[in-house]
Structure formats: C-alpha cells, structure tokens
C-alpha cells in the first residue's frame, strides 16, 4: 500500500527560528508531491509541488522553500519563521494526470 509519513506531528517554534518539515512516501515510485498549508479556519493552500527529484514549483511567494533530495522525500524549510507561518501543513502525493491526490497526516506548526 502507498503511505505518506510526515514528521514531526506537532511543532512549536519561536519567531525567527528555522524550520524543516519532512514528508516521505512509501509504496510508489516517481510520485508527484505537494505541500499545502491550512491556516486556522481557512481552506487548503498549495505551497509547492514537485514532479521529480530537484524539481520544485512554487505557487505563492513566501519565506518558505521546498526541496526534493530523493524520489520519495519532500522537505519544507524556512530560514526564519514568521508568526503568519503558523498552520497545519499537509504533504500529498499523486501519480500525475487524472490521479487523485492523497494526503499525509499533517504537521501542526505554531510560531510564537
């Protein structure tokens, strides 16, 4: 079966600190990978997507960045967190084309 892992599950960080969230996928090769954020009371906002190793597309300007060092690993980073970066971060995968996107369990980030 295809599984998405996200680590950590929850995180509390001070403003100005760095961030690294990890997403790993099992049971599939060459997936499309996505990072979404859900701010409190809001819908899902696509942040980044990747169709392959080293290939990252950014959907919104922000102080976050993403990297895909391996086929099944997707990392979300920041050098300096802002209060507005608080939210629920979701990693998703698909096989491209018409395939449905499936989501991981998410990481709750609180920036204080």
């Amino acid at each position, binding site marked *: 079966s295809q599984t998405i892992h996200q680590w950590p599950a929850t995180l509390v960080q001070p403003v100005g600190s760095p961030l690294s969230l990890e997403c790993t996928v099992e049971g599939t090769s060459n997936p499309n990978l996505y990072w979404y954020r859900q701010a409190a009371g809001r*819908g*899902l906002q696509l942040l980044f*997507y990747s169709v392959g190793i080293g290939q990252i597309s950014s*959907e919104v300007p922000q102080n976050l960045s993403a990297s895909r060092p391996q086929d099944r690993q997707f990392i979300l980073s920041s050098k300096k967190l802002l209060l507005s970066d608080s939210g*629920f971060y979701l990693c*998703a995968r698909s096989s491209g084309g*018409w395939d449905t996107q499936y*989501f991981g*369990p*998410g990481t709750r980030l609180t920036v204080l």
Partner: protein
Amino acid sequence: DQQVKQNSPSLSVQEGRISILNCDYTNSMFDYFLWYKKYPAEGPTFLISISSIKDKNEDGRFTVFLNKSAKHLSLHIVPSQPGDSAVYFCAAKASAGNMLTFGGGTRLMVKP
C-alpha cells in the same frame, strides 16, 4: 480570486436525513472534481470524484452531481450519520495540470 467556492461554511443535519454540500467554480478549464473529508488534526481523506464527461457519480452513501453549464457540483450523503461530521472540501483540476484548487470547506454536523 477564488476559483473554487464553498459558500456555506457550515451545515447541520439530523441523523438519517440527506446532507447536501455545494461547490461552485469559475474556471472553465476545470474538468475533474473531487471531494475530501477532513477531521481535525488529520489529513484530508479522498471521498469521491467526477470527471466532466459525467454528470453523476455514486459510491455507497455518497453521490456527486456535476452541472457544467452552471459550474456547480454538489455532494449528497444519504443517509447522514454522526460519523460524517467533519469538514468537507471540494477540489478541482484541469487535465493539463497537476494541481488541485480547493474550496474553503464546509463543516458538516450530523446530530444524533
């Protein structure tokens, strides 16, 4: 500009009755539509999808209807159960792309 809108932020339904969740879109390039269900602090779970070549798709208690001329889709849940209480997101994509555009979500509460 929101290309996918869910105009009802919340909906309350009695157990056993029908729940109807609505979604409108503006982008005529969208030709594949999905519904996701999300519990707090969890990733969204895929429920059902429909492509633009169909106007109805049914899976158990869940039916999605698509009205292309009105750019409107709806999710019907019959009969509604307390376990259906969650936030429901509709999403849309164009076949030429990899990205889903999500609505803001509707919180469904099914009362016993």
